């Protein structure tokens, strides 16, 4: 609740199984982003419970939140790549901060970049990449910690239909490896193309689940 009786999400009871692929859809302001923010523990609910892997996210300490987030990958609509850092640096941002050696970082970054098909652009800067490539780098960054859960907020919002499909196929591949994937999008065509479980939100309530 955002105060004064305004609810971002209300009466929402959803269970997402491990390894599942779920779309969140709905109009702008329906509560898709809040749903993801709750799962990432950027926000805690004013009422109710958010459990991931049996843990009540609201009860985590700051340190536990940090540890939890290392098990979650997040992809933004606007990629949020650091323009003055190379692809390698962007992807290895957190492993480097966490003290991985240079060799370990490079090996892991290379593997994940190879997986998204951009290992040859390791030393490029984001500005030298196309929109689709930038989003693939952002996905690589989300995968570098080998997360159990990947969240994406309108990951294709800035891309044309062909590239959107390409990115969605990547998410499908991620899911095929056993990773739970939750994608918020209002692109119904894309949803129908991928054909996975879809939660439709409207004014903070789940109005459809199929």
């Amino acid at each position: 609740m955002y105060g004064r009786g305004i609810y971002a999400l209300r009466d929402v009871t959803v269970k997402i199984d491990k390894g599942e692929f779920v779309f969140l859809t709905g109009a702008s302001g329906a509560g898709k982003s809040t749903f993801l923010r709750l799962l990432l523990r950027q926000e805690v609910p004013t009422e109710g419970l958010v459990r991931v892997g049996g843990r009540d996210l609201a009860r985590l300490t700051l340190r536990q939140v940090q540890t939890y987030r290392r098990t979650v990958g997040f992809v933004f609509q606007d990629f949020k790549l650091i323009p003055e850092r190379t692809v390698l640096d962007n992807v290895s941002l957190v492993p480097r901060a966490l003290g991985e050696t240079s060799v370990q970082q490079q090996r892991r970054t290379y593997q994940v970049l190879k997986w998204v098909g951009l290992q040859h652009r390791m030393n490029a800067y984001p500005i030298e990449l196309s929109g689709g490539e930038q989003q693939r780098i952002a996905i690589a960054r989300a995968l570098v910690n080998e997360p159990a859960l990947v969240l994406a907020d309108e990951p294709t919002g800035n891309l044309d239909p062909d590239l959107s499909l390409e990115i969605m196929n990547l998410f499908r591949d991620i899911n095929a490896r056993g990773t739970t994937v939750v994608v918020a999008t209002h692109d119904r065509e894309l949803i129908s193309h991928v054909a996975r479980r879809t939660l439709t939100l409207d004014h903070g309530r789940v109005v459809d689940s199929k």
Partner: protein
Amino acid sequence: MHALRYCLVEAIRSLMRAPGATALSMLTSAVATLVLGGFLLVSVNLERVFVLWSGTAEMSVYLADDITPEQRVALNQVLAASPVVASRTFVSKADALARFVRSFPDLSTGLEDGPDNPLPASIELQLRPQGDDGRSIESLTRELRQTAGVADVRYDRQWLSRLATILSGVRWAGWGLGAVLLCAAVLTVSTIVRLALHARRDEVEIMQLMGAPIGLLRGPLVVEGILHGGGGALVSLALLYALYLVARAAAGPVLATVIDPALTTFLPAGLAGGLVGGGAAVGLVGGWMAARHVR
């Protein structure tokens, strides 16, 4: 060790990203530490002059004519116990008269032949410099005046007390002004580091969302503050040394009438190190103030 290296590398990267802001912040820190260092430099040299002149000071303790042997013993014990007294010379009534006659032959007519010698016996004290603005000398003077058998105590270096007062005033003015400027430096460093944080907000947000420890998010900002403050202090120290050399050369002839210019000195290593450390501490506070905004 890794975390420290990471923070240092990121801090340097941030400094280089905005050279103009870095220069402004370092300049503010430099001005603050330059003013404080300048006052310290003047204070250190005034203190040297004080100690030098104090070293030549003497005190005379005049004894009552009816001083008893016990009182004399007690007085000698007080003098022996005092750290201020370097050496002492007893001048008897006869010695005092002889000295007076030698110094003032015209005035001494009849004194030598008179039945009573009016000059008192005394103890002349050579004093040891204490470097405490004359407080220990004043304390000894008070103690001696209250000692039985002492008729009077003369310490004719009141100007040394005045110098001590000036010295103390310079010190306090320096600390006061320095404190104000250091506060300004803290705020400037904090603002500049916050600007750097703002420039890196996407990076910080991503790192937060990917579970980077809060220490690794705040650490580079604190280190950046330390580099701002410490760097500024180093610049100010170099500038202060240059100013010291110029001032010594320019004021040489005037200075020579008061003290041998060769006896002036730059800040001792401990103080200079303290100044740089203080600058770094200012930066640390500024950096920490900025880093608190990362939650």
